[in-house]
């Protein structure tokens, strides 16, 4: 018997693979309902392999943990939303002062640990440093998982392995990830100091800022930059559409590495005022889903099996908001409810577990994904990531940098367009198609 086998008893009601938001939510709900739950995580402690942007929408998490506001490791409540377009040295920034904050910033490793602690307090057993190699199927039924030489048996396995769904691929429920449907993110965490963050960004205690950036920070590749304030650090990162980035790199259009882009953003004249010469305390990268319904697997359930969170393709990226963690938690919760109900009506058969799909499809997660499904085409079109920032920044330059005579807005638009070599007719068509899609 190998390592895992020595640490745990023979048999579980439910094994959950992956102690991310989805796996922790499912484990917590099931343990609370009296199920014997084993939560397996490959990292050294929950959250230790996780990297995201920086903010979480609170309400869906409160549905699972009503004491979230008091107990969770919340760094700051987002009270300022910013969006910038960059082009050369020109930057246009839009700021919205949030009336009622609905999201908070935190470190994902810290938050995942908190969620995993809730699950273990409720009675789940967490075993970390275990890589699950296979989900074991016998006679069409999932009967447990294999890690190295250990076989661990359970009535139900919940796959919460995240975006790299290697187990789901092996099961035949998902294709290998399509580079056109994922993005690669890289980020740095800068130690700025709580007071400096507040002063430089006009935030009071516990108030936070979320800032997305589009334009030449990604050198023409669809994607963007992000900046989130934590308690005393700031996260700064870049996300690139993988399919488009590979294309641009192979054709020689892309010359800067993704870590080079993050460093350029850190050293960008406009942005660097905020962190000054703060040191980098951590750096990393992670894949993420581009959004839309494109990565939802053929089936979300099998006899004895459910898939949740990123593994189930449940993430929305509209370009101005990213909702992954709250979707993951919600799907984990719905999976747990499904399992509880299945045991009340005879067990986790395929038919009883199919209820998960109906629950998901009538939840806000699915409604959001369906409503915004047109977005992924826009988010992968280089046009919007070059032409819009170029035109907008050039337009404002015309309006605000006049010594004597200011152009009219219409004149400025045409002048800016001709300077940037942009066809207004094409722009209008593109914009009309955006309106059509969103």
């Amino acid at each position, binding site marked *: 018997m190998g390592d895992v086998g020595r640490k745990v008893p023979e048999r579980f009601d439910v094994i959950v693979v992956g102690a991310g938001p989805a796996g922790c939510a499912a484990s917590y709900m099931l343990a609370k309902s009296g199920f014997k739950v084993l939560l397996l995580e490959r990292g*050294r402690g929950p959250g230790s392999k996780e990297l995201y942007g920086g903010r979480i929408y609170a309400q869906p998490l409160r549905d699972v943990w009503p004491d979230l506001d008091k107990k969770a490791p919340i760094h700051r409540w987002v009270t300022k939303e910013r969006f910038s377009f960059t082009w050369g040295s020109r930057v246009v920034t839009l700021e919205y002062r949030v009336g009622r904050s609905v999201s908070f910033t935190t470190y994902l490793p810290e938050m995942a640990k908190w969620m995993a602690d809730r699950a273990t307090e409720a009675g789940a057993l967490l075993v970390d440093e275990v890589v699950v190699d296979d989900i074991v199927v016998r006679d069409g039924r999932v009967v447990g998982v294999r890690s190295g030489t250990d076989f661990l048996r359970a009535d139900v396995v919940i796959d919460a392995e995240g975006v790299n769904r290697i187990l789901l691929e092996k099961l035949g429920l998902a294709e290998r990830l399509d580079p056109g449907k994922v993005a690669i993110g890289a980020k740095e965490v800068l130690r700025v100091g709580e007071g400096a963050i507040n002063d430089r960004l006009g935030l009071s205690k516990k108030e936070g800022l979320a800032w997305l950036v589009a334009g030449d920070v990604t050198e023409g590749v669809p994607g963007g930059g992000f900046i989130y304030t934590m308690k005393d650090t700031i996260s700064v990162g870049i996300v690139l559409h*993988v399919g488009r980035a590979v294309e641009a*790199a192979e054709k*020689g259009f892309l010359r800067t590495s993704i*870590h080079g882009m993050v*460093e350029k953003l850190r050293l960008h004249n406009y942005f660097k005022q905020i962190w000054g010469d703060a040191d980098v305390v951590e750096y990393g*990268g992670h894949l993420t889903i581009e959004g839309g319904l494109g990565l939802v697997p053929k089936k979300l359930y099998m006899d004895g099996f459910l898939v949740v969170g990123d593994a189930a393709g449940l993430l929305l990226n509209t370009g101005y908001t990213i909702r992954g963690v709250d979707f993951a938690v919600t799907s984990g919760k719905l999976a747990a409810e499904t399992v509880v109900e299945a045991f009340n009506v005879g067990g986790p058969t395929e038919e009883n577990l199919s209820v998960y799909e109906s629950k998901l499809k009538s939840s806000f997660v699915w409604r959001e994904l369906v409503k915004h499904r047109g977005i992924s085409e826009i988010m992968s079109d280089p046009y919007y990531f070059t032409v819009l920032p170029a035109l907008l920044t050039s337009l404002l330059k015309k309006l605000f940098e006049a010594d004597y005579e200011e152009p009219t807005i219409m004149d400025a638009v045409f002048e800016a367009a001709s300077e940037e070599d942009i066809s207004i007719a094409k722009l209008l068509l593109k914009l009309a198609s955006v309106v059509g899609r969103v």
Partner: protein
Amino acid sequence: MSTLEKPFKIEDLLQRNIWDVDEEPHIEIPLDDQEGLKKKALALLCPAGCYTLIGDRLIFSYEGCVECGLCRIITPSDKIRWTYPRSGKGVTYRYT
């Protein structure tokens, strides 16, 4: 000029993290035949800079790998063996 005003090399960035590098490479990509590899993309897009292009030749080192999975999905599956490091090895994030 302080060092913080110049771009860091990838090694300097990665050095900030907690590491317990597996003695066994968890990724193998045979580089004798580089046909079909997205060489430039691997060199620019691996967030840990594990792939380097020297002239037209790609070299690879798994040590700074942050296990993101990107190289797995842009390389033909018969040209790469990609697994997770064993027993919690590899990178450990705290603030991400």
